[in-house]
């Protein structure tokens, strides 16, 4: 089971996200500073990957075939590997896949993986999502 979707990265979304996590780097807020550093536009903080990936990961996690109760879902572990910067204007396509399901005592553990590429087909970020259902 896998889900794919494309997220268009907006300049104001990057600024809004950066503000919500307290990221103050001028690269994430100031277009001129980002351009001076060699980027086309403001740069996404690395953890913004969680946002552009959710477009595909959400439907993967909530797939009725898997049957996770969202209100009982707890994020158990997370792993990201970044390959290339993401800047405003990029179109990021993520493919999210169900990996496996295991039982640890009373808790069920569901693992999903994701791969995100930009509009040039370059790999920008990979992730592994581990969810516990209480």
């Amino acid at each position, binding site marked *: 089971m896998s889900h794919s979707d494309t997220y268009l990265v907006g300049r104001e979304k990057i600024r809004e996200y950066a503000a*919500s996590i307290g990221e103050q780097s001028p*690269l994430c807020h100031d277009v001129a500073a980002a351009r001076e550093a060699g980027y086309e536009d403001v*740069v996404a903080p690395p953890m913004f990957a969680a946002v552009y990936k959710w477009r595909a990961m959400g439907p993967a996690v909530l797939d009725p075939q898997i049957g996770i109760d969202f209100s009982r879902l707890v994020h158990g572990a997370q792993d990201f590997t970044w390959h290339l910067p993401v800047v405003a204007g990029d179109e990021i396509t993520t493919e999210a896949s169900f990996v496996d399901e295991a039982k640890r005592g009373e808790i069920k553990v569901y693992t999903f993986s994701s791969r995100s590429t930009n509009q040039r087909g370059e790999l920008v970020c990979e992730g592994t999502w581990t969810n516990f259902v209480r």
Partner: protein
Amino acid sequence: MDELREVTVTPDRYTTYHYAGASGDFNPIHLDDEFARSVDLPSKILHGLWTMAQVARAQTDVVGGPLALKSLSVQFRGMGVPEQDITITSKLKSQGDGEAVFDCEAVQDGSKLVRRGRAVLRI
């Protein structure tokens, strides 16, 4: 490079609302105390990915900026809540070949929110 770093961040009353809007994660366990209690949580809880972003920032604020992070993996444990300090500890594990590896964790009120964090940074 410091062998051991400690930073404290304090989510305010509205952090989970800001993060919900910015991230699109409107799960009511992060926004609504009453709902959170109805599913056996003590109160509304922080988004794990917000807490992970603080662990990321605890590295990149000091080492090379937001694009220096090559990878970050964490395990989430205790439930984080607003309006209480979170202490993030990062310990230099190794460095060489243009990268530095840190072991990190985040603790709030004696409970580990993030354990076995591993951050790799370009240096």
